[in-house]
């Protein structure tokens, strides 16, 4: 009997605990729906983003800053890791429960925007959001059609990040600014002869797209209903190059890459590869882990500036179901224009677009961050227009391309066959956008 008594008491106690915490939580969860009519006009905003610890910490500080300057506004932060973030966002969208301010990524941007989940920010541009220090090009990164669905938080550019010392070790003095793919192949062969990898391969969709752009084409057509190139020879040329490198041993095989657990394992860090093809905002990370000087170099040509583009790293979007769109826009304005806020940010979300911010930040940056800033500034002068966010269905196309690339790198498929298969399947995926 005593045991049951014990259990009963526990149950009662736990229930009351839960009722207390449950009660308070459900009331705070009611943020956007009914806070507008309060007597004090307190506005509650919900904001969500993905990231890891440093980002959470400084973003929370920025929010605190904003709340201090805007006493009538309370912002509830909801942050999580990348996987968890997207898993949660989709159901929220279907239940019309999206947070007021949402961090958006290009890979999901079209899905959410074209399905009416994101608000059009055009009315706020020039009003709540001051855009005097931004170029049109920069802002247009968040446009689909003629609606602005997200405000660009920073740009990235692809490049080759490498170890100059290792480069010299394999017998190459330096990389020319106007180097070409042929130069690249030569250097890769030298790397292999010296027992090193040249790099760790190229993410298929990103770099194939770059390659296509240098030829005046692109991966997706403007309206997203077909592929953006007709000549399969381009596919064959590019992927023959990449799979040959794997075959020759100048780049690692897919299963080698699958076992890498993270940056610490990266061949560049371990001095087993000369460099790595990646985005500019990944430079600081790998440099820190490698703990030795690395350099950033631009992509090979010909036609580098046709190929390069400034990719918006991420956006702040406003949910269509938000009841406080104006207030949300004001926060975005604060985030991208306020100098103190950006001094906390330090380009973690990409190189900021505001010229004023860039000038203010340079003095407080570390040398590595300055390298990144400089390379993006160079790219700003040497790039062409961004093609816009990936169309709906891009996720499947990318998976398809990755899979084909994997098979080519395993030597299981010839680029000629892969080219045909890719065209056939990708077009069927994209044709659903018609």
């Amino acid at each position, binding site marked *: 009997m005593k045991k049951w008594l014990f259990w009963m008491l526990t149950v009662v106690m736990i229930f009351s605990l839960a009722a207390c915490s449950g009660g308070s939580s459900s009331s705070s969860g009611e943020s956007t729906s009914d806070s507008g009519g309060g007597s004090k006009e307190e506005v509650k905003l919900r904001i969500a983003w993905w990231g890891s610890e440093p980002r959470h910490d400084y973003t929370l500080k920025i929010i605190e800053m904003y709340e201090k300057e805007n006493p009538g506004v309370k912002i509830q932060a909801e942050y999580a890791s990348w996987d968890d973030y997207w898993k949660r966002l989709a159901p929220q969208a279907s239940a019309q429960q999206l947070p007021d301010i949402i961090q958006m990524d290009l890979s999901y941007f079209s899905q959410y925007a074209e399905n009416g989940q994101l608000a059009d920010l055009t009315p706020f541009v020039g009003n709540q959001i001051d855009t005097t220090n931004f170029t049109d090009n920069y802002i247009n990164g968040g446009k689909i059609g003629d609606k602005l669905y997200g405000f660009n938080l920073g740009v990235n550019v692809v490049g080759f990040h490498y170890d100059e010392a290792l480069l010299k070790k394999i017998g190459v003095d330096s990389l020319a600014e106007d180097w070409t793919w042929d130069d690249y192949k030569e250097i890769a062969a030298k790397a292999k002869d010296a027992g090193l990898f040249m790099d760790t391969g190229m993410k298929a969709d990103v770099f194939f797209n770059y390659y296509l752009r240098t030829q005046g084409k692109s991966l997706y057509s403007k309206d997203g209903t077909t592929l953006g190139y007709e000549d399969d020879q381009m596919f064959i040329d590019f992927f023959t190059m990449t799979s040959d490198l794997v075959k020759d041993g100048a780049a690692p095989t897919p*299963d080698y890459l699958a076992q890498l657990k993270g940056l610490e394992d990266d061949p560049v860090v371990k001095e087993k590869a000369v460099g790595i093809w990646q985005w500019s905002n990944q430079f600081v990370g790998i440099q820190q882990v490698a703990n030795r000087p690395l350099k950033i170099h631009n992509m090979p040509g010909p036609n580098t500036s046709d190929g390069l583009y400034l990719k918006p790293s991420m956006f702040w979007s406003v949910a269509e179901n938000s009841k406080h769109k104006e207030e949300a826009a004001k926060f975005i304005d604060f985030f991208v224009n306020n100098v103190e806020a950006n001094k906390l940010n330090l380009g973690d979300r990409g190189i900021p677009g505001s010229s004023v911010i860039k000038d203010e930040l340079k003095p407080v940056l570390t040398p590595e961050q300055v390298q990144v800033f400089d390379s993006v500034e160079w790219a700003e002068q040497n790039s062409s227009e961004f093609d816009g966010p990936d169309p709906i269905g891009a996720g499947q196309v990318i998976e398809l391309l990755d899979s084909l690339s994997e098979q080519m790198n395993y030597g299981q498929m010839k680029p000629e066959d892969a080219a045909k298969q890719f065209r056939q399947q990708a077009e069927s995926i994209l044709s659903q956008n018609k």
Partner: protein
Amino acid sequence: MSARALKQNMKGYAFISPFIIGFLAFTFIPIVASLYFSFTQYNLFASPTWIGLENYKKMFTEDPRYWQSLKVTLIYVFAGVPLRLGFALFIAMVLNTASRAVGLYRTLFYLPSLIGGSVAVAIMWRNIFGDEGIINLLLAFFSIPDVRWFGDPTAALWMLIFLSVWQFGSSMLIFLAGLKGIPMTYYEAASVDGANFWQKFTKITLPMLSPVILFNTIMQTIAAFMTFVPAFIISKGTGGPLDGTLLYSLYLFIQGFEFFNMGYASAMAWIMLIIVGILTAIIFATSKFWVHYESEGGK
């Protein structure tokens, strides 16, 4: 209906009423909704549009990845479940002795299950099966050539199967509970009659344990079919290499939440339900022949 029968029915329903209420409140509508979705094109945001059997047709005739995921999952189930249960039963019996250390051993063997499907597990597992990991070292010790666990689709699937077998602790626990329920008197009586170990095992242990074996078989089969987390974190959400670890649930997730083809994913889910349902029904049907319930009279 007689008053007695009515009373009996009411009693029965009273006891299972929590289930019924919970079902109607939280599960019924979602299940019906998911069936509805399976006949639609639904991307989670816009309203679903009815397309009839299109999803099902596409699944069976136009999607090689679907068949691949089915194949991978069937191998996973039919190789993994027997291994897992066999281990679990064996260890449960070994640990069913009266020794003080046994409590500790039980906990140790159960530890892998307790860690669950966290990312830490995936990291550990990937580390062990890496090219320079301990598994290959062990193999080398026995002069077996290295296996490229990450490069070969079949080997990668076996990585997952081993992970499942490694976490046999939960099945083992259930078997232990079952073993403890077998009265010692039966064994003593059998000894008196001159039975040897094997006879005791097959004529006492197995039959007395059969309800639990049935339970474990069904549950593990269902669970194996629905396995998602290990495949997701070990293959980093890709099902690679070359779709070798593309378990059915993982493919379903990718379709539903990465490609936003929720209608298609729902169709996949219902097919899975049918397959598992049929399999379970078969197992249940055969149970008449080999499962023995003490409460319903002996054999």
